[in-house]
């Protein structure tokens, strides 16, 4: 293949701009590529059982040691935040939204580090939510006190916490059923 510098382009086609891709194709691509673990990475069954037991202990410990702020965040997962409507509401809710955002971050931190099984659907949802949060975070760098952005961040974090919570409960149930 020719090197870029050697390409002869009499029609100046290379001057044409790149055509942007509006749609995110990753979820569809991800759904079609199945990760295949190499044979060398497969562990003996006893190791998987030990890992499951350790995970269950961690889950139980965490559920028992939830802090009040985390419980507050948990309630938020099931009760959507009211969207601020007026300017006064927005100013009043800003601090509350930031606090809730921090609480949810804490709540998500531990389950994120755990290595429990994640379904393909959960993986897609988690990835998408994290992407959307990253976009909001970029916008917050420019507008640090925009209540609308904080509201959207809290809503997304609540969704994410909900996914992790669902996963935790499922893993715990699976362990109890063993």
């Amino acid at each position, binding site marked *: 293949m020719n090197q870029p510098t050697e390409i002869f*382009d009499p029609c100046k086609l290379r001057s044409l701009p790149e055509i*942007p891709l509006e749609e995110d*194709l990753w979820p569809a*691509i991800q759904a079609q590529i199945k*990760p295949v673990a190499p044979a060398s990475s497969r562990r003996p069954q006893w190791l998987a059982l030990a890992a499951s037991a350790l995970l269950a202990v961690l889950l139980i410990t965490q559920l028992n040691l939830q802090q009040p702020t985390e419980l507050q965040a948990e309630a938020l997962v099931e009760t959507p935040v009211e969207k601020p409507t007026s300017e006064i509401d927005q100013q009043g809710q800003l601090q509350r939204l930031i606090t809730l955002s921090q609480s949810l971050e804490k709540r998500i931190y531990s389950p994120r580090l755990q290595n429990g099984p994640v379904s393909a659907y959960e993986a897609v949802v988690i*990835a998408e939510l994290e992407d959307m949060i990253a976009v909001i975070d970029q916008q917050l760098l420019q507008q640090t006190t925009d209540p609308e952005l904080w509201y959207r961040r809290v809503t997304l974090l609540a969704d994410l916490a909900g996914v992790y919570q669902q996963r935790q409960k499922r893993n715990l149930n699976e362990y109890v059923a063993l």
Partner: protein
Amino acid sequence: MTKSVFQLRLDAQLLQQAQQGDQRACKQIYRLYAAPAYSLAKRLLVCPEHARDATQDAFVAAFRKLDKFQDVSPFWSWLKRIVSNSCIDIIRKRKPEASLDSLQGDAHHPRLADTAEQQLLLEQVLKSLDTEDRVVVWLYDVEGFKHREIAKLLGRSISYSKTRLSKARTKLLNADAGLTQPAEKFKAANKL
């Protein structure tokens, strides 16, 4: 446009992780190359839906055989062949009524005045070319494919690729005739 893609270097660790099936690494690679891949597909296929399908198929194919990629050549050189293959597959599957040949002859182009207009005209004429003419001229002039590679992709002979290239360039340059002397451009275009 394509220069920036050539400059993209795939981090060795990222590649290794993706080759081991790490979804996050695959996603990062997708994010890096999605735009140029789609842009290439759109240039070849014109139809946005087909371009999207070709891009998606290409990434799926690329990730499935990522273990075969060897980091001795730029990643984009490898990926764009896969994208081109996906596009050719779609062209072959197209029904006759979906052919872009109907777009031919729709352009009575005014003389151009500035770069933006030139680009717009170029876009229009490029779209109006026969599908295979467009594929050949884009892969040869922009992506740096050789005639034997294009011939193999299209299942045609090398001379077919050369003829198509000459035809496509002539059409593109004729539409752009007001800018320089057509005869000079024609000679330059066919100096291979």
